[in-house]
């Protein structure tokens, strides 16, 4: 399968700070690829290098088969970029934002007008077309930013934290739009620190931490490899000393307010814990998630 992005030993330094410390990444055509990690893991720096805005410090990088160092504008002509912070022209109308962005790609005015109409539909903003952007809700602005990034029919769409700061309804609406794009054959690269977003959207992902890749695979593979089928969460009083329950599970993680017991059968484990006279304030059996993978790999939770 053709690779749209190939990175080998890619690094990025800002002065003495090493934001990205030698990562290998391949993104295949048609897939949705994720960078999962906490803030400061190097996800955004990596995205900026892939979007051919920021130069690399070391290593190799090919995007759409070209070198961003020499063919930046040519590559960018075929990319769509959704930045972490909206940078819409808020004093212009929704429609003008789309049309002007098309012009940046050298499209004719006529083509820009047609494309704007099409994207207004896609973003479900047709009824707001001639309103100024400023008063729109966060979710609407986000949809407009995504619509704008599609003005040049990109082969590769880069989304940096696409749903950060949105309410659940707005997130689901956005995910739905992204699914549709994927079905149309657009390759997606997404950074996120939300595990549910990564699980929902990504075919394959890498877990990043401290500028390095800690693990790579599909969400399911990663969960199978690094976690158990189920997790038993036991919550105790904040000042209560937590009992040692390591003998009941394959692995136990101690968090400030609770214990996580990694086990094949959560209910059975809970019963055995109860039989030992341990009485947590609250207990919960759930499936393993990427959050558990991250905890296992880094010893830290994803969202602090």
């Amino acid at each position: 399968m053709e690779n749209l992005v190939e990175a080998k030993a890619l690094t990025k330094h800002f002065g003495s700070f090493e934001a990205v410390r030698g990562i290998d990444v391949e993104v295949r055509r048609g897939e949705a690829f994720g960078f999962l990690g906490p803030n400061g893991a190097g996800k955004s720096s990596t995205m900026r290098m892939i979007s051919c805005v920021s130069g690399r410090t070391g290593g190799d990088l090919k995007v759409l088969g070209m070198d961003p160092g020499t063919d930046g504008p040519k590559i960018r002509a075929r990319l769509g970029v959704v930045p972490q912070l909206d940078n819409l022209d808020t004093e212009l109308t929704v429609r003008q934002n789309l049309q002007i962005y098309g012009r940046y790609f050298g499209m004719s005015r006529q083509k820009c007008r047609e494309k704007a109409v099409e994207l207004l539909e896609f973003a479900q903003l047709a009824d707001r077309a001639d309103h100024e952007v400023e008063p729109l809700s966060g979710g609407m602005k986000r949809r407009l930013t995504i619509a704008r990034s599609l003005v040049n029919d990109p082969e590769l769409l880069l989304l940096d934290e696409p749903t950060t700061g949105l309410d659940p309804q707005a997130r689901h609406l956005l995910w739905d739009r992204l699914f549709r794009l994927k079905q149309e054959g657009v390759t997606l690269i997404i950074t996120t620190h939300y595990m549910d977003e990564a699980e929902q959207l990504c075919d394959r992902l890498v877990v990043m931490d401290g500028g390095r890749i800690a693990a790579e695979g599909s969400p399911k593979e990663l969960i199978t490899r690094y976690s158990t089928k189920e997790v038993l969460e036991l919550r105790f009083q904040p000042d209560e000393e937590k009992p040692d329950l390591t003998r009941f599970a394959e692995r136990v993680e101690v968090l400030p307010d609770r214990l996580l017991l990694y086990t094949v059968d959560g209910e059975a484990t809970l019963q055995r814990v109860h039989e030992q006279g341990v009485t947590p304030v609250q207990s919960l059996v759930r499936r393993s998630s990427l959050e558990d993978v991250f905890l296992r790999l880094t010893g830290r939770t994803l969202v602090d």
Partner: protein
Amino acid sequence: MDTLRASWFGFEKTWTWYRRNWRATAVSGFLTPVLFLLALGVGFGSQVQSTALIGGVPYLQYLAPALVVVTAVQGATFESTFPVMSQFMWQKSFIAMVATPITPAQVLYSQVMWLGSQLLLRSVVFVGVAAVLGAAAGPGILLAILAGTLAGLAFGVPLVAYSATLEKPEAFNNIFRFVLMPMTLFTGAFFPVSQLPDWLVPVVWLTPAWHGIELARGATFGTLDLLPALGHVVYLGALVVVGIVLGVKFFHRRLAV
């Protein structure tokens, strides 16, 4: 995509914004010359006796070509500070632009184009108003349009470059107070530079405003010799070039990290 085309698209964006918001700038662009010419030229000028030092012409006419330059330099200062910083930091439109085939250098060129067009427009309006108010000594004042535009660019383009290095807008207030204000008052617009203390004159020679005023007034009254005129144009042109070179560097540093 070639550089001129790419820069043009950036210009187009600002033009689109301007079409929606032109009233605010147009009012100040039109009112400023009217107020200045009325207050200082007609009002204050009525109390000023013409001397040989100002060429024996009425004060209003002496003032008009220089005010074209002064308002252009003022306009350039406003256009090159907050709006530029905003597009890096608040509106972030520059950041949106460099995610497309447009390069940081082309973003800068589009700003220079925009600035030049604004200065040209302001200067044309000013000369038109001056003509109506009887402040134009002759057709030579039309050349003040070019002098004003060039002087405005000579101050504005380096300022655009400087604005690209800032994280906070506080420095702008110092520029308004300690650079723009004295440059407006003491570079020969309101009285001949020869009235200043000798030690100050070389400082005045460094300002784009003085070179622009010399050009504008000289062209209006036909007192300009070719060699000094060339000198002024070359000096102002050099400032524009320095501004562009620095601007390309600073825009790249700011946008491509």
